[in-house]
């Protein structure tokens, strides 16, 4: 244990407006902590540079799942266990519950929050691929007001996002448009549980007259930050699913993917397996196989 608790300040303003006031008073000086599953690991390793921390845990305004007629709205401090437990979400947007199940262990899922997962911005983030293929929108708030941006515009670089220094990630909006889409999500880690992603692929698609009417593809660990595989999607859009198109799509994915070698895996493995996952999805799609 290399952290020194006395070297850090942690305050609990206790409400969303109070937190926003703190952020506004000294933009960029305060680091947010919710479930602590990232911040406290860095702390114990002696790597937590942030000296001033603001607590989000326990603020009810941030932990909620609301259902409207056309969307699910998920508060940023909703935990992954909360997400797994929501019956309607699990029925319509099953990839959310699936990726929630993969976050660490039960003890991690009870504390890790979806907002924290996105704000941390790891290219291996477990919830990002699913959110991208579900056309998620992110609602950001500050004392200046609130705004919504497509989640696909949230990450702008390696561990960099589009939030202003006084902004807080408030909620994730998921349109209720995907219940009839074919859906796929598979994560490849170092073991069955407690595994950081080596690569993961999420997909939603709608077939129309034996061709691909809509398709969204997103991966983990194929780029410096989570993003859609737009070129690969283009190779499939309006195409039938057959051997040649699957080969084209695999080639497009291999060209589009920019994985790296790191302590967990190799670029070559990630690229090849990602293409295999895509093929697995496309085969399921073409066979009208039931959802995994």
């Amino acid at each position, binding site marked *: *244990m*290399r952290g*020194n*608790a*006395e070297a850090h300040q942690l305050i609990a303003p206790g409400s969303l407006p109070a937190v926003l006031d703190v952020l506004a008073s000294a933009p960029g000086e305060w680091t947010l902590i919710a479930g602590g599953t990232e911040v406290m690991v860095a702390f*114990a*390793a*002696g790597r937590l540079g942030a000296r001033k921390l603001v607590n989000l845990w326990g603020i009810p305004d941030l932990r909620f799942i609301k259902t409207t007629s056309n969307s699910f709205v998920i508060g940023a401090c909703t935990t992954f266990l909360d997400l797994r437990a929501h019956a309607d979400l699990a029925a319509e947007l099953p990839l959310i519950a699936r990726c929630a199940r993969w976050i660490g262990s039960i003890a991690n899922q009870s504390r890790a929050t979806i907002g924290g997962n996105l704000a941390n911005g790891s290219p291996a983030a477990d919830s990002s691929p699913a959110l991208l293929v579900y056309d998620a929108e992110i609602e950001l708030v500050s004392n200046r007001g609130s705004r919504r941006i497509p989640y696909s515009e949230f990450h702008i670089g390696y561990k960099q996002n589009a939030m202003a220094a006084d902004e807080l990630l408030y909620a994730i909006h998921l349109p209720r448009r995907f219940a009839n889409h074919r859906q796929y999500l598979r994560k*490849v880690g*170092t*073991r*069955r*549980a*407690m*595994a*950081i992603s*080596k690569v993961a692929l999420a997909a939603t698609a709608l*077939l*129309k*007259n*034996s061709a691909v009417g809509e398709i969204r593809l997103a991966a983990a660990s194929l780029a410096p930050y989570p993003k859609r595989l737009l070129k690969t999607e283009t190779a499939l859009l309006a195409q*039938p*699913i*057959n*051997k040649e198109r699957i*080969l084209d799509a*695999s*080639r497009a994915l*291999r060209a589009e993917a920019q994985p790296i070698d790191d*302590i*967990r*895996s*190799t670029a*070559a*493995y990630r690229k*090849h*397996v990602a293409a*295999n*996952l895509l*093929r*697995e999805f496309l*085969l399921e799609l*073409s*066979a*009208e196989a039931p959802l995994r």
Partner: protein
Amino acid sequence: MNLTTKNRIVGSSAPRKEGADKLLGRARYIDDIQREGMWFGSTVRSTIPRGLIRSIGFDRRINWSEITVVTAADIPGENHIQLIFADQPCLADGQVNHCDEAILLIAHPDKHKLRDAINAVHIEYETLPPIFTIEESERQDQIVWGKDNLIKSFLLEKGDVNSVWESAAHIVEGEYRTGAQEHLYIENNGIIAEWSAENGVTVWGSLQCPYYVHKTLIKVFDLPDDKVRVIQTETGGAFGGKEDYPSTLASHAALLAMKSRHVVKMVYDRMEDLAATTKRHPSRTRHRTALDKDGKLLAMEIDLATDGGAYATLSSTVLSRATLHAPGPYSCPNVRISAKSWATNNVPYGAFRGFGAPQTIFALERHMDEIACALGIDPLELRRRNFLHIGDTTATEQLMREPLIMDQLLERALKESDYHARRARFARENHTSAVKRGIGIACFYHGSGFTGSGERILNSLAGVDVSPEGKVRVLVSNTEFGQGTNTVLTQIAAEAIGIDYDDITMATADTGLVPNSGPTVASRTVMVVGRLIERAGLQLIATLREQAGLGNKFTREEFFAACERLRADKGEVVALVRYEAPPGIFWDDDKYRGEAYPSYAWSVHIAQVAVDTVTFQAEVEEFWAVQEVGRVLNPVLATGQIEGGIAQGIGYALYEKVVMQNGHMANNQMTNYIIPTAEDVPPIHVFFEEIPFKHGGYGAKGIGELPHDGPAPAIVNAIKDATGVSFHSIPLLPEDLFAQMAARESAEAGDPGNWPSSTGWKESIAL
């Protein structure tokens, strides 16, 4: 000893002696212990793998007057850890030979101040070229140890291998490699030390061998035997990782205690424990095997090399066991094993469950499958044709005098696993499945106890005593760290004396209190020390009968009354016995010939593995282990040992990789050093056969290390069965499977990026 008597308590699953404390959270591990006025210690470690220390600077932003600093210059006695060679310094003095080598120690009453202090020590080095592989060490371009980098070598010869190469029907060669492996006991290393001019040094801690630590401390501090006391606290896992390392940590904590004049606690965090402490020796084994036309072994020539790391530690004894297990449970008239342990600038490697055997058994059992393939013989049949039987001699010319039932173990394993039916099913299903399944076996033995004359040299002393409060104590220096020492030795004592299990306790493993019954290693505890306790218990009863009027049958009250009569007469109630070697044990250490081990446990492992061709992940789906281990003294504990060893073996094969970058363990966090979780371990089926060993405690042989020897070769054999691809090296990660299988896929399909047709294509489907 009557091996056929039905026993009261031995052979039953008596509940773990210290189980309630552990389950209630009351067991006290070293970091649970606080002492009044205790300071905390930490270590400044080398950041380079090899070089000279040019200067040590202390940044003035820290108030050094508050901090105790210890260097090699503070060591009162010898700056060496006492093991086999005295080559490893307690603290680096002018030179470092591996990353994370200890240079300075610091202590402070506030543990939160330590990290800043460590970061404020600036060391300037003059770097020297490091070496990190067996091959670099063999080339001897850089000499990093002794005169020639060679820590130890053995040559074992039986018959004359050169007489058969010309005439042999078949010659098969192969090279096999194993990587380092980390123990990952869930409790990190820790010690509390106390020093005073009057009493000398006392240490408490997480350790396997109190007398090993004692042996180092008396030299480091230049103190007589009775001025050093080592006390084991509840230990949260060890697996060999706390066999020798605690001698280093205890020296460090005691030096800080001496200089600071305070009790000092040093407990590593996970990052430090992973980076700085010992791991399993990496190995390279080359086989060259001659067989006749029927697949009978004519000659085995084996070239074995291990990476010892920067200091010798236990490399020579690991090499010895590796050598003696390399030829396996097979009868072969001509054997030549040339074994060498090479020094490098890696963090020193040390003891780990199996101690050289997992390395060479991996090589051998993989090689047997390669031979079977080369000869077109069924791998089971190849083994059957060559198994050792009673009356055969081993590679060291040890005559197998005890019944040897490898054939039966194999048959039972095949039956329990429904091997043939499964194999046939996989052969059918694999054609159309993206998941390929296979089944593989490993056949092996593990020698129980110290090699050759090792036990004679240890000359263990152990016994029992009775306190005036009516508690019978087992007096041994052997320690509990999960494997069941406390439970089984008290079962044995209860059985031998004839009283209740609940009336026997273990004396604390405290060198001030218990005799030296040898280290808790080499699967020797129940066999060797158990036998001593059995004899001591019988001796106590004999003494009570002869000298204190105890009858042939007695109640609990009569027993304790007789004890008090003996105490009144003699002043104490104790029975101590010394080790007696079984007759007929002759071992020639120079020629490596004779009775290598007093007894062997024998085993067959079968692994069913699934390889997912989409992700190249291999998983063990089910596992069977059949073993003959002498008498099983506690079925639940024995089964738990087999299951736990298999889980570690599965990790060794498929998950656990030590990633070294410039001599430092780069993946020194649990996030990145991967062991199987509860979702990864397969169902494991354990079956015991028992042929009591008359010189072991109540007929027991050793079992602790046996189960770690088999999983890796069984698994990699199964992967070959599943995929047709031979792998020769572990750990075998998905990236490694991918590298070979994807290359093969492309080659087969003739078109990079194309897909083989066996995986099934679906045409487009009209909606």
